[in-house]
């Protein structure tokens, strides 16, 4: 166990020294405190090396202190809960946490992957694309190896066991960010009575006040922030969400927030959600998202021990950790002088402050006077060390940033770097606000003109604390008043002392030393040289630069690298930075679990299963399920030991020779009533319905406006102005919407009401030679003789003791009755059928048997009518009445639909013992390899137990003229084929006598 060698004796307002926590880091057992992040605890223990970089496998250390961290990505947890690529700077420490480093083999210390680093010249930006072009045949070999090398963490192989939740909220004002500006805005708006949601990604509010010893109103900044948090939490109209990132901004004031509920807990409540995905509709928002410090690129600037200056400052202030013993501080702005004083007071030796500016600022002069070793007009040109920094090469630079000598080596174990700040404009940009480049800050700031939401504080380019508070109060007050809370008052901003930043001309990079790399994007290993390469290869637009070099494409989305990258490209193009511009900002701001978006709606809940009234019976009796339009439908019923095909064959033969029953409740049902109902059906169906007798039904087909078949079904006439339409399962919603469109938009003068009643009726079809006998037993009070209830007739009465409508229609081609009852009595009817059916050898059948039966009869479904097919293609052209118009009729005379050579419906019978492959194309030659012209394709397949052969329906060019022809059904994808004979599309009882008896 290592002691916490770099933890100060006292200090660190974020940790609780009375609550020690021990944890595992790789094979080590380390100690920290409650309040630590894994990063602060690792630094406290003197741990430097925390990973290997993505491409070059270079040793990497902790760089920053927040969610912008590019390097310190660890795998936290084990088993199904393991989360790779977790930022050590964000992960809060809990007792017995396990953290493991990633992307190295065999070990972190000795990683063979670093050979890539040595061969680095072969792997510049864009090398991957070039492997495709250079030698395409070898690519499959390269790809295997590239895949093994690429990637950072490894995900767990088990499903995610955690729970996630969704929450919806409305508010008047959403404040993104709980730093000084955000707190100020929330306080004002909250006090004015507005409903406020304040979200901050950290566990405590305060933002920058937590990471530096600023004073507000005489209090240390973090105490002022804690008091503000308490005040806000006490307001009933304010919701404070910590550990919550505002992830995305969408249209119509819709915001997504991700709350991390349990990742900081050693033993989370198993009922609690791990993450909560908030969908918030806010009337207005204030973005107070702060600014992210940007580094300066110099040779080997990616070494462990090179860190962000503000992070080093924050580790001391919040966690009581010194990130090194001997430091060189390198910064182009005055914040370095206050930081140097704080670190020196805490016991760190400040070897030098290296200030690249060509002038001596007041703060620099004061520091020199205070005997700090300050080197102005100098730069750190190289970091020295192998797995960790042991020195900084420092050289004087001229006005153009060029070193004027080789420089000298300053021994140190920490190089803290600051190149200024980039306002976090992500949310503003997502909301389609535009950006302006401020030369004085060398940064993109939000343009308020035309911006949908206000920005306040350092995200708006205000870097002094008093200014941030003042902007926050103003934004909160103005927003609240605009929302109708007239009492909102902007208080006088309390006295606040931050520290000045001073004039900070930008320094993006120091020229690279020969053979050394200057990193711009740490996470994706993108160097200044890669940017130069992109320029030379003409990938000069900012979006090309991003994708060619992968700059900004890591999990950190370039938070510490995007602006430097585009600035360097601007320099190479010889243009001002705004001419290059930024890439598009897209949500989410930081990564979160997919399951959070699913929000516990995975599995059964996400796919809301629609159950018929007999669902539980099916489930208890071996149903093997399929999904149709969200309904659970049994494909067939398993019994011990029989194969699926055997079961399906049994069900088919039962219907052909005895009687079967199938649950057909899922088919769409529409109740259509009104004086114009019959006329309406005439306009919608291709055949006439206005002459249908009451108490009879007719099979109808609907077309789309383009003449293709849309849907089909039997419609029964229940009364002069009353019809019961059926549709297919999958089109029940679509047909209803379509009919409503016609009635509401196209023909509003028609007096028709359409009511979807699919779920209100349970329907079971009994089919087979014994069906009539069975129905007689079930409905003794109803005359079900062939005369009283002929094909397409209907009857009403008690069936199995339940009031029912009986429709005589047949999909299977046998005598068949569809019995409809109130869905509440569905199971009672089903049980009655089964009980009475025992005496008639009744078998229950599912969709697979139903499919075989209808294929044997050549009845088409959407498998044939796939949106490209007309009634004439299906051989049913005679269904289009010549005497009236209908939807789609106009299109039937378009040239395409009357041209010869269209594919037409045919049947196929396979040669004995051969199976027609699913999805087969039809060809003249029995050859799976050589290209040949496809004659058509198969649409439905079945084994016909009645014929003892495999059969199929197919669409074949000029099919009706080709009956008797021998062709081959070919599936090159499955490497299967069969010899087939083309026949008429009806394999069983073509006269139809069986269903009419």
């Amino acid at each position: 166990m290592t002691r916490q060698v770099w933890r100060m004796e006292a200090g660190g307002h974020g940790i609780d020294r009375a609550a020690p926590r021990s944890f595992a880091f790789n094979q080590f057992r380390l100690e920290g405190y409650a309040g630590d992040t894994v990063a602060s605890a690792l630094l406290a223990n003197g741990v430097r090396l925390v990973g290997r970089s993505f491409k070059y496998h270079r040793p990497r250390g902790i760089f920053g202190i927040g969610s912008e961290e590019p390097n310190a990505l660890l795998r936290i947890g084990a088993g199904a809960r393991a989360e790779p690529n977790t930022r050590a700077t964000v992960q809060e420490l809990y007792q017995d946490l396990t953290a493991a480093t990633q992307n190295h083999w065999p070990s972190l210390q000795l990683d063979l992957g670093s050979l890539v680093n040595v061969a680095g010249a072969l792997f510049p930006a864009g090398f991957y694309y070039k492997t495709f072009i250079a030698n395409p045949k070898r690519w499959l070999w390269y790809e295997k190896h590239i895949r093994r090398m690429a990637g950072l963490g490894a995900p767990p192989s088990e499903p995610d066991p955690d729970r996630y939740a969704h929450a919806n909220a409305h508010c008047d004002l959403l404040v993104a960010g709980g730093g000084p500006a955000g707190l100020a805005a929330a306080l004002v708006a909250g006090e004015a009575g507005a409903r406020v949601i304040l979200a901050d990604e950290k566990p405590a509010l305060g933002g920058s006040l937590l990471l530096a010893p600023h004073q507000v109103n005489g209090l240390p900044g973090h105490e002022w922030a804690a008091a503000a948090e308490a005040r806000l939490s006490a307001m009933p109209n304010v919701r404070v969400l910590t550990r919550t990132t505002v992830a995305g901004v969408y249209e119509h004031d819709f915001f997504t927030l991700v709350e991390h509920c349990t990742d900081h807990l050693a033993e989370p409540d198993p009922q609690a959600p791990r993450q909560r995905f908030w969908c918030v509709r806010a009337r207005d928002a204030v973005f107070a998202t702060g600014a992210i410090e940007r580094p300066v690129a110099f040779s080997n600037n990616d070494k462990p021990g090179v860190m962000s200056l503000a992070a080093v400052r924050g580790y001391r202030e919040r966690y009581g950790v010194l990130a090194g013993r001997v430091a060189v501080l390198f910064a182009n702005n005055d914040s370095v002088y206050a930081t140097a004083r704080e670190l020196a007071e805490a016991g760190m030796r400040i070897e030098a402050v290296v200030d690249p500016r060509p002038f001596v600022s007041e703060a620099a002069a004061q520091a020199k006077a205070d005997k700090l070793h300050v080197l102005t007009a100098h730069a750190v040109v190289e970091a020295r060390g192998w797995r960790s920094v042991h020195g900084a090469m420092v050289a004087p630079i001229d006005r153009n940033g060029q070193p004027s000598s080789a420089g000298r080596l300053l021994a140190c174990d920490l190089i803290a770097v600051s190149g200024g700040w980039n306002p976090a404009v992500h949310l503003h940009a997502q909301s389609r606000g535009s950006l302006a480049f401020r030369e004085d800050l060398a940064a993109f700031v939000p343009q308020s003109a035309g911006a949908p939401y206000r920005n306040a504080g350092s995200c708006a380019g205000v870097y002094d604390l008093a200014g941030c508070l003042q902007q926050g109060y103003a934004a909160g007050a103005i927003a609240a008043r605009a929302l109708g809370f007239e009492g909102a008052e902007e208080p006088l901003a309390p006295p606040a002392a931050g520290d000045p930043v001073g004039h900070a001309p930008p320094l993006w990079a120091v020229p690279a030393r020969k053979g050394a790399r200057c990193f711009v994007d740490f996470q994706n290993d993108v160097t200044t040289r890669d940017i130069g390469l992109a320029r030379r290869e003409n990938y000069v637009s900012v979006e090309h630069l991003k994708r060619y070099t992968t700059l900004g494409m890591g999990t950190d989305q370039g938070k510490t690298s995007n602006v430097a990258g585009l600035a360097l490209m601007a320099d190479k193009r010889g243009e001002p930075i705004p001419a290059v511009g930024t890439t598009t900002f897209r949500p989410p701001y930081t990564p979160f679990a997919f399951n959070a978006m699913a929000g516990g709606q995975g599995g059964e809940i996400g796919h809301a299963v629609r159950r018929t009234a007999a669902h539980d019976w099916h489930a208890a009796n071996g149903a093997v399920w399929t999904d149709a339009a969200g309904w659970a439908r049994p494909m067939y019923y398993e019994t011990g030991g029989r194969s699926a095909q055997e079961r399906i064959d049994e069900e088919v033969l039962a219907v052909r020779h005895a009687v079967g029953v199938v649950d057909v409740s899922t088919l769409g049902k529409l109740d259509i009533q009104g004086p114009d109902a019959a006329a309406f059906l005439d306009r919608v169906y291709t055949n006439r319905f206005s002459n249908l007798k009451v108490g009879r039904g007719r099979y109808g087909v609907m077309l789309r406006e383009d003449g293709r078949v849309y849907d089909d079904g039997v419609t029964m006439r229940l009364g002069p102005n009353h019809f019961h339409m059926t549709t297919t399962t999958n089109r029940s919603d679509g047909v209803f919407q379509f009919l409503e469109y016609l009635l509401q938009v196209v023909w509003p003068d028609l007096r028709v009401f359409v009511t979807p009643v699919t779920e209100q009726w349970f329907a079971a079809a009994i089919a087979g030679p014994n069906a009539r006998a069975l129905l007689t037993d079930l409905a003794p009070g109803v005359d079900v003789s062939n005369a009283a209830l002929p094909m397409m007739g209907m009857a009403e009465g008690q069936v199995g003791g339940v009031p029912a409508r009986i429709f005589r229609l047949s999909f299977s081609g046998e005598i068949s009755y569809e019995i409809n009852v109130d869905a509440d009595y569905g199971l009672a009817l089903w049980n009655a059928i089964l009980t009475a059916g025992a005496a008639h050898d009744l078998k229950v059948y599912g969709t697979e048997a139903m499919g075989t039966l209808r294929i044997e009869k050549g009845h088409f479904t959407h498998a044939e009518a796939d949106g490209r097919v007309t009634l004439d293609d299906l051989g049913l052209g005679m269904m289009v009445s010549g005497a009236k118009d209908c939807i789609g009729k106009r299109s039937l005379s378009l040239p395409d639909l009357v041209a010869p050579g269209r594919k037409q419906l045919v049947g196929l019978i396979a040669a004995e013992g051969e199976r027609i492959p699913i999805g087969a194309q039809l060809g003249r030659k029995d050859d799976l390899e050589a290209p040949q012209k496809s004659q058509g394709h198969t649409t439905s397949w079945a084994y016909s137990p009645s014929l003892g052969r495999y059969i199929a329906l197919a669409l074949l060019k000029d099919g009706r003229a080709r009956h008797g022809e021998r062709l081959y059904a070919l599936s090159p994808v499955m490497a299967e084929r069969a010899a087939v004979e083309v026949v008429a599309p009806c394999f069983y009882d073509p006269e139809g006598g069986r269903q009419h008896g």
Partner: protein
Amino acid sequence: MLLIPCPWCGPRDETEFVYGEAAIQRPADPHALSDAEWTEHLYFRDNPKGDHREFWFHRVGCHRWFVLERNTVTHAIAGAWPPGEAPPRRKDKA
């Protein structure tokens, strides 16, 4: 996530609705149109970068069709009306 103002139910999340089609008028007598004119009606649509009038259906709600004017770039919604009640389009458009 659009917030769509159903003329009967008020503003609701877009997940309650289904997009229909551009707010075109079905020709009263399709058989009076030439093949070219009918094909134009079937397949050709304006694709404006700007305000677009379209039919939406309140599927999880009142089951009414209505006309929505929505900006295809910003999603700003200018209005929603029952079929046949949308005011004439403004001629002056940028």
